[in-house]
């Protein structure tokens, strides 16, 4: 008997959301797998390499699935999920704000093919970058990371954080000013930022 290959197209976003709201576990897994890589990138860029990364991602997706019945399609699903992820990051930072916790580098992919010394320096540069960001206000830290590291526009930062564009701009500006001040006296951080921007 000949094997018949049937092309299966991915379900449309609205259908997938509706199935998730009905409690269809297969649909929930499909949505998770579609969105996970993007949400991971976003959260990683906001938080840096941290052993709390998994916890934040879990909280984000649990909140997504519990909140889907209230998703009315007024924003793109991706934007709506990004807001939840940013909220989870905000809660994470808020809970840990008073703790002197350094950024832990648990995993990294910095120039994996490069020289060992370069990789070590890049890892240290990354650690210092997030250490500087950790000294900022949570709002400024998130706004700056969304803009400068995740590559969002000011309008997108404002939309995700539900703030005015001018507020987003000011937060980014304040964070950049502080980072510039720290870079001036830190050659490793300066090299890391310059190297990253050149790639």
């Amino acid at each position, binding site marked *: 008997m000949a094997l018949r290959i049937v092309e299966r197209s991915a379900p449309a976003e609205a259908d997938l959301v509706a199935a998730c709201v009905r409690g269809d*576990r297969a649909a*929930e*897994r499909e949505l*998770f*797998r579609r969105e*996970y*890589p993007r949400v*991971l*990138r976003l959260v*990683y*860029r906001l938080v*840096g*390499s941290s052993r709390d*990364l*998994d*916890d934040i*991602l*879990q*909280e984000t*997706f*649990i*909140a997504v*699935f*519990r909140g889907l019945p*209230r998703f009315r399609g007024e924003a793109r699903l991706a934007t709506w999920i990004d807001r939840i992820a940013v909220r989870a990051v905000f*809660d994470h930072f*808020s*809970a840990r*704000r*008073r703790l002197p916790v350094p950024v832990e580098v648990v*995993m*990294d*992919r*910095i120039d994996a093919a490069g020289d060992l010394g370069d990789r070590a320096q890049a890892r240290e540069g*990354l650690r210092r*970058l997030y250490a500087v960001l950790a000294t900022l206000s949570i709002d400024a830290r998130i706004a700056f990371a969304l803009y*400068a*590291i995740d*590559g969002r526009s*000011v309008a997108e930062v404002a939309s995700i954080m539900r*703030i*005015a*564009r*001018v*507020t987003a*701009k*000011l937060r980014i*500006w304040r964070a*950049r000013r502080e*980072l*510039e001040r720290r*870079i001036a006296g830190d050659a490793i951080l300066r090299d890391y*930022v*310059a190297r*990253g*921007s050149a*790639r």
Partner: protein
Amino acid sequence: MTDRIVVDAPPAEASRDRVEAAVFAGLDAIRGAERAAALSADRPLVRPWMYPAAAAAAAVAVALVIAVRREPASRSDPARAPSLVVTPVGGSSRFTIDDAVIDAGSDTEVEVRAADPGEVSFVLARGTIDCDVAPRKGRPLRVRAGDVVVEVVGTRFSVARTPAVRVDVTHGQVRVRTPGGEFLVGAGERWSEGGAAPAAIADPSVPSVPSVRGPEEVAAPPDSPDSAGSAAIAAPVASHSDDSAVQPARPLAVRSSRDAFEAAQRLESHDRRAAARAYRAVAGGDGAWAALALYSLAELDASSALPRDALAAVDEYLRRFPRGAGIEDVMWIRVETLRALGRHGDARSAAAGYLRQFPRGTYVKPATRVAAPP
């Protein structure tokens, strides 16, 4: 410094299965707790208020500090048993009651009570709650903070008890009942304990009245418009006079420029004209908040397809605050509004001016395109 920094995220495959397993285990735990709570209720129609209890049962998954307690067993109706939501300092919690979404802020203790069918009450012991309430069709939702009661039928508002009680309304209207009387508080207004009637951003149609400073108000900076007088702050007298149960407006609490600016920001999403008036009121003063308000007004006008108004605001900013923090953005908005008005030669000159002043600025690429000869 460069505008963008490259940080590579780890590959999704390395953690996806692990996180996926944890997410669905957490969801199963939460849903199981919800089903158990639903099965134990006598009256199915009032079950949704038990969501905080279900969330607490899955505290590992949601990582929020939510404590739930029951009334003594002598109370036979479980629907009347209260739930307590407590957040730690620096923490926060979101929960839902029917269609209402409640955000409890840092260091907050709020008790949720279901009284008569469909009626929900919150007792705020301390901290802040932000309530987004869909129209409730006659099912009242009340927040009690000490002897102050806030009642709502469909709106967004927040109540703070720190320890003075303060009510901020984003949309709709709430009724605030106190031992001293009742007050209606509308969108963009604030009511605060201590003899203050609602304060609002100035409306030209409403006469301003003399003002006093409320006990919890933060003193405005010496260079702020508030220190120079209260012309920018007025009471919504008309909205009070049509309800005989509501007391006439009393002397007002003066809001700081920051409060007024933030109220204007909140108006942007649903009433741009009111937001523009509010920004204009703040911009009438001096200092950083006035500059920010003028910038925001220019941006609001530009995004509302009002380039002439935007250009006027921009030019005023450049004249009054030539060293303001938003000068770079303002100069770029000027380029955009000149283009929107069809004044391409002026836009080219403005773009060239921007490039001279900010050769490594945020808008260098588009400015270079505009400044290029036709």
